């Protein structure tokens, strides 16, 4: 990208990239595995709607255990560690320094993935907490929290060591994300899973606040922060800074107030406030859309299904998923949309359509630089992009439409409830195909990552055997 721009400092881009190598691999490898596993479980769960009677014998295969396990794998297993990895690299690049304390994120990555593993097992054996998006019980939650803090330390140290004092717009978003997660995760765990949890529906309110701040806000901060770093570079343009600042401020002010369902059995001011906030979200959305158009449209760079395509598509998906969120906050529409598949469609679009695609694109872009060799299967990048787009089309569109059909039938008291379920069933069965495409795409992503890892390990072993004092520097055939 900007390899030559770094020459004024002592470090070359190659050295910066090399310092990120091991921590990033530790974060990404398991993340790719969890992504594939999460989608596989999601697929298995959706088979319940094809043949419910076949899923009765085994507690592990119950829909109510498969779905939380799969969702948590997507968010805790894949999204957060992959996002943190990309964040570390962007921080190192923007700071023009090597990654500070590289050993810390390596250890933290292992703690994190151990936490995800234990949490998943806990859900399967029936130890889930019962709170949506917060199903991991106390022990794995502590591991995740500690690991996040460790990675944040390394990220902040790298940030502090920057040469240029002026902050890049990506910095704002990513720094805010570093601050966001520890606060929301600790406060929610303390209020809901400590020895004396809060009473009654306050639990549900806190859980909605947490879920919105995790799925909508945190993912948006990291995803948009990443997009704002890569898009100007790909397009060869500069980012409109003041507009980005405006988008950042308005987004973090309004977005954390969304997410309380309109019909919830809680004091009425809570959903009312949430509804107002979701209307206001339109302001940062317009700003982000303008930034996107100004940066990307008319750019001479062809994307050809590569990382540029990924990140462009992901940003558009973010705008769409936010619009779906706004519609759910609108009292008239929410009467139809709530309690239907529309809300899960929005969450899946946010996680898979926006975040996963942006982060996969970023990883495809940074991995060759970090490893100092090209991706083992460059053609799979494009294949994955198409599979994901196809998968999303077959997953999100049927779920959203099915949700509206289901909601319309549910709102009509003259129709029996079974009508609404049956109407949604056809759409659900179509969405299984979408999950299959997404699973295949995630396997291609994992294939590239694991092949990279193996190639690197082989090179490492070879260089050790060959008693060469400077491992890997022989392959400096970088364009």
């Amino acid at each position: 990208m900007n390899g030559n721009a770094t020459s004024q400092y002592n470090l070359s881009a190659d050295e910066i990239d090399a310092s990120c190598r091991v921590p990033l691999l530790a974060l990404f490898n398991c993340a790719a595995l969890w992504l594939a596993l999460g989608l596989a479980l999601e697929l298995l769960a959706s088979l319940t709607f094809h043949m419910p009677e076949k899923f009765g014998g085994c507690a592990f295969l119950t829909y109510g255990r498969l779905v939380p396990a799969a969702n948590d794998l997507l968010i805790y297993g894949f999204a957060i560690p992959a996002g943190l990895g990309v964040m570390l690299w962007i921080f190192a690049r923007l700071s023009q320094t090597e990654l500070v304390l590289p050993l810390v994120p390596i250890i933290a990555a292992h703690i994190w993935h151990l936490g995800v593993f234990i949490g998943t097992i806990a859900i399967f054996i029936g130890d889930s907490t019962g709170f949506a998006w917060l199903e991991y019980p106390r022990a794995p939650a502590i591991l995740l929290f500690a690991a996040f803090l460790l990675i944040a330390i390394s990220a902040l140290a790298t940030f502090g060591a920057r040469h240029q004092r002026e902050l890049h717009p990506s910095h704002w978003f990513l720094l805010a994300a570093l601050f966001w997660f520890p606060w929301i995760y600790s406060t929610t765990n303390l209020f809901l899973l400590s020895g004396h949890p809060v009473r009654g529906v306050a639990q549900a309110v806190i859980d909605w606040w947490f879920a919105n701040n995790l799925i909508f806000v945190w993912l948006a901060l990291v995803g948009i922060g990443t997009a704002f770093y890569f898009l100007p570079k790909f397009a060869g343009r500069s980012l409109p800074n003041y507009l980005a600042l405006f988008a950042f401020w308005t987004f973090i002010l309004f977005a954390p107030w969304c997410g309380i369902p309109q019909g919830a059995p809680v004091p009425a001011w809570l959903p009312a406030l949430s509804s107002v906030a979701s209307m206001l979200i339109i302001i940062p959305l317009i700003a982000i859309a303008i930034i996107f158009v100004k940066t990307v449209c008319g750019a001479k760079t062809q994307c050809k299904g590569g990382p540029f395509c990924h990140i462009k598509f992901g940003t558009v998906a973010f705008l769409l998923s936010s619009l779906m969120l706004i519609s759910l906050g609108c009292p008239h529409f929410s009467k139809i949309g709530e309690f239907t598949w529309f809300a899960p469609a929005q969450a899946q679009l946010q996680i898979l359509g926006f975040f996963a695609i942006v982060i996969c694109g970023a990883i495809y872009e940074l991995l060759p630089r970090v490893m100092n060799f090209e991706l083992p299967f460059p053609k799979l990048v494009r294949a994955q992009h198409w599979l994901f787009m196809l998968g999303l089309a077959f997953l999100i569109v049927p779920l959203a439409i099915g949700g509206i059909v289901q909601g319309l039938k549910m709102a009509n008291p003259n129709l029996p409830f079974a009508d609404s379920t049956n109407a949604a069933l056809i759409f659900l069965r179509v969405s299984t195909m979408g999950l299959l495409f997404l699973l295949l795409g995630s396997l291609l992503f994992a294939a590239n990552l694991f092949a990279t890892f193996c190639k690197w390990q082989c090179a490492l072993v070879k260089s050790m055997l060959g008693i060469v004092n400077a491992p890997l520097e022989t392959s400096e055939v970088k364009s």
Partner: protein
Amino acid sequence: MKSGFRVFLAAFVALGLSWCGFVLAPVLQLGEAKQTQILNSSDTYPIQRTGDATLGLQVYRANGCAACHTEQIQQSGMACDVILTSAGKNSAAVSNLISNLKLTGLTKEEADAASDKITAAGGKSETHIAATGADISRGWGIRRSVAADFLYDSPVQLGGIRVGPDLANVGARLGNANWQLLHLYAPQDVVKNSAMPPFRFLFNVQKIGDVPSSDALQLPKEFAPAAGYEIVPTDDAKNLVAYLLSLRVDVPLYEAPFTPPQISTNVPANKK
């Protein structure tokens, strides 16, 4: 922005505000909630669930029932009927007044206005309130769910999606424990084309001893075990059913009023 500190400050203010709004305020407002009084009665609500039902909530949680079932009845509004209980001395004036007044399907304000007019004319009236909405007309409950319904539950299992029907009032709707057990074991047997997966792992298949177990399920041929065997619910299944049967939202509260059906036969409302 030039310093990281300012970004942190911005994030701190933004997240802190929403934390105060959606974490601190609900905890202060609802976290110390106590029992409330049932409308027109000296009884308090809710009462703690029984021991087996409390255990059953944990079975409900462990198996993620909330992934498909909500526990929140919605209500779009309420319809009030003003009913004349006594015409008083000036019955001609009252009957004249009533013939000109709309007395059914009113809002609360209209009903109050009508009943004021009747009182002014010397008659006596009472107002009957009924909740309205798709969930109510579907028979899922008599009124909407409110915060008080969940006072003793931990974790609160509101749910977010209705793949299956709402369960907030299932104990009053489908109060037969045997039906519930049968439905858990073989949903497709009880509800045709049900999308619910069976929960067979909550049941044991055991050899019939000298005397058949009194708990054994009476299953049709299609779902019955091999000859000489019987299907017996485990403690988990029994607790889960106890919890389901304990789910009832059938008392009027200040924030969700309705006139209970048994009082609607011209008995004064405060005499229960």
